[in-house]
């Protein structure tokens, strides 16, 4: 393997603080704000904290470490990293890339909605009927649950702006684009959300909301479903196991404290989630009191929380427009920094495989993503399409590829000991048998159970009362196509001159051609 090569320079973060900020920007997304509070409330309230903490420590952070180890040791986006891990594993990398592609094309749409709602907040454009405004006036859904191509201009042009901004950041590169964007947007997000939480806490009824959110239902701890929900929340929230953290860690310098950085990222993400729970439930407490109803009658999650419940809250409070700008601005910034990371995975994988330089790769891969996004979602049937694609991409795509990746890495190729040693060779927080057990045994079992349950339920029940044809086309077929295409892409030859055997080894001295992190090739 003593091949020397100097191929195109791999970009590199200027320091670990930039990487940590980018990783936090990726992990803290829409799900932190609109999913965690609802999941926690529905699964035992305050008692949910216990399975949530256990899940963070036994699955979230260990998987984060695993992603960092793969990306840092094998120095590539998922296809190259898994190819270097073992020839037969490349398809897993492409599977992750294609899951990112699918998520990216609809995630941008929600960021676009949030952007429009930031401006709608100024005039409370939804009037006294936020639901009617969202479905009929803004999204112009035709009530027909099939698929169509009638465009909604108000959504389409905002979506175009989002794509231009995302691709613009990516075109500037890892440090100048992604790094600087996160150094600006992540602190801004924290600041905006902190102000929002303070304002929420001063509303009448806020303590009722917090009481509902934190009151523990201890019986939930004996419910298996609650524990699965906790692992699911941690898993989806941390941006692990679908290529993002592999890609981001591939830009780290040779000696970077991987586990120390991972602890900061993992706890930052969860800290923000708790902050979001406090802000959201304080606001919901206010809404319940204003309407004279129980908290349970106003609790919602996802799109219903963000685009129906919050507009109603904004309209009910003094200084509503200011609060609305804080809330929807937070959604935009949280979504934007996550969106950047998702699309970077696809761009970086394409660059690794073809050797294409940055800007053409961004225009090619990002351009295709943008076109697909613009064709499918800003339409009069886009809401249902988005709902189906989102469900399957998360519960089948992410869970499926994570499960397969862990089984292949831990059990078929048995590379966990080597990855553990790599983490320990560069990190201050040492890991051992516990990490091996969590990543090699506990998490695969949980993911396998989640995957099996989802497949069983979707086959038996369909999804959300939507037509089977829509679920088949945008759920099952998309995910099946992703797997088939991943296998096909793994057979396409790599660009000439790339060292497919390269791996970072702390015990070997540096050579001129293996300057750390700056060459996608290297010396073994």
């Amino acid at each position, binding site marked *: 393997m003593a091949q020397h090569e100097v191929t195109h320079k791999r970009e590199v973060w200027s320091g670990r603080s930039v990487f940590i900020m980018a990783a936090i920007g990726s992990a803290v997304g829409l799900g932190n704000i609109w999913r965690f509070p609802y999941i926690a409330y529905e699964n035992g*309230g*305050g008692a949910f904290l216990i399975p949530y903490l256990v899940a963070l420590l036994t699955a979230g952070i260990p998987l984060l470490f695993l992603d960092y180890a793969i990306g840092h040791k094998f120095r590539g986006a998922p296809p190259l990293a898994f190819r270097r891990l073992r020839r037969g594993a490349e398809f897993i990398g492409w599977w992750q890339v294609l899951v990112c592609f699918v998520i990216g094309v609809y995630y941008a749409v929600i960021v676009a909605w949030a952007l429009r709602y930031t401006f709608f907040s100024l005039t409370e454009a939804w009037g006294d009927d936020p639901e009617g405004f969202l479905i009929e006036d803004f999204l112009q859904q035709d009530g027909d649950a099939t698929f169509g191509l009638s465009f909604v201009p108000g959504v389409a042009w905002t979506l175009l702006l989002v794509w231009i901004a995302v691709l613009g950041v990516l075109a500037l590169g890892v440090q100048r684009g992604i790094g600087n964007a996160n150094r600006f947007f992540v602190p801004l997000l924290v600041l905006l959300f902190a102000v929002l939480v303070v304002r929420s806490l001063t509303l009448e009824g806020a303590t009722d909301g917090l009481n509902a959110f*934190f*009151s523990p239902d201890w019986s939930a701890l004996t419910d298996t479903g609650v524990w699965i929900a906790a692992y699911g929340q941690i898993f989806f929230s941390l941006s692990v196991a679908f290529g993002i953290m592999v890609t981001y860690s591939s830009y780290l310098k040779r000696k970077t404290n991987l586990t*120390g950085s991972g602890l900061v990222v993992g706890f930052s993400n969860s800290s923000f989630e*708790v902050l979001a729970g406090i802000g959201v439930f304080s606001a919901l407490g206010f809404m319940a009191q204003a309407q004279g109803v129980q908290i349970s009658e106003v609790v919602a999650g996802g799109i219903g929380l963000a685009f129906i419940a919050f507009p109603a809250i904004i309209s009910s409070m003094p200084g509503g427009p200011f609060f609305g700008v804080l809330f929807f601005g937070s959604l935009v910034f949280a979504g934007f920094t996550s969106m950047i990371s998702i699309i970077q995975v696809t761009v970086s994988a394409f660059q690794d495989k073809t050797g294409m330089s940055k800007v053409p790769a961004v225009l090619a891969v990002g351009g295709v993503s943008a076109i697909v996004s613009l064709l499918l979602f800003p339409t009069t049937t886009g809401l249902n399409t988005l709902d189906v694609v989102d469900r399957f991409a998360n519960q089948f795509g992410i869970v499926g590829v994570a499960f397969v990746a862990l089984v292949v890495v831990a059990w078929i190729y048995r590379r966990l000991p080597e990855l553990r040693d790599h983490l320990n060779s560069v990190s201050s927080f040492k890991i051992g048998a516990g990490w091996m057990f969590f990543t090699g045994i506990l998490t695969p079992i949980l993911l396998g159970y989640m995957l099996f349950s989802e497949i069983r339920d979707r086959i038996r029940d369909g999804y959300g009362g939507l037509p089977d044809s829509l679920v088949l086309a945008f759920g099952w077929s998309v995910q099946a196509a992703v797997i088939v295409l991943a296998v096909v892409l793994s057979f396409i030859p790599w660009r000439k001159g790339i060292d497919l055997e390269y791996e970072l080894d702390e015990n070997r001295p540096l050579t001129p051609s293996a300057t750390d992190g700056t060459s996608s090739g290297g010396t073994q």
Partner: protein
Amino acid sequence: MSGAAIGMMFLALITLWGGLLLSILHLRRHPDDPDA
């Protein structure tokens, strides 16, 4: 708020934000090699 709710809120803040604080302090005590 009930006592149990207040207790769980503080427990959440202490464990998660405390974990964040400890992990930041740990990282600061182990700076990366600037030449690596």
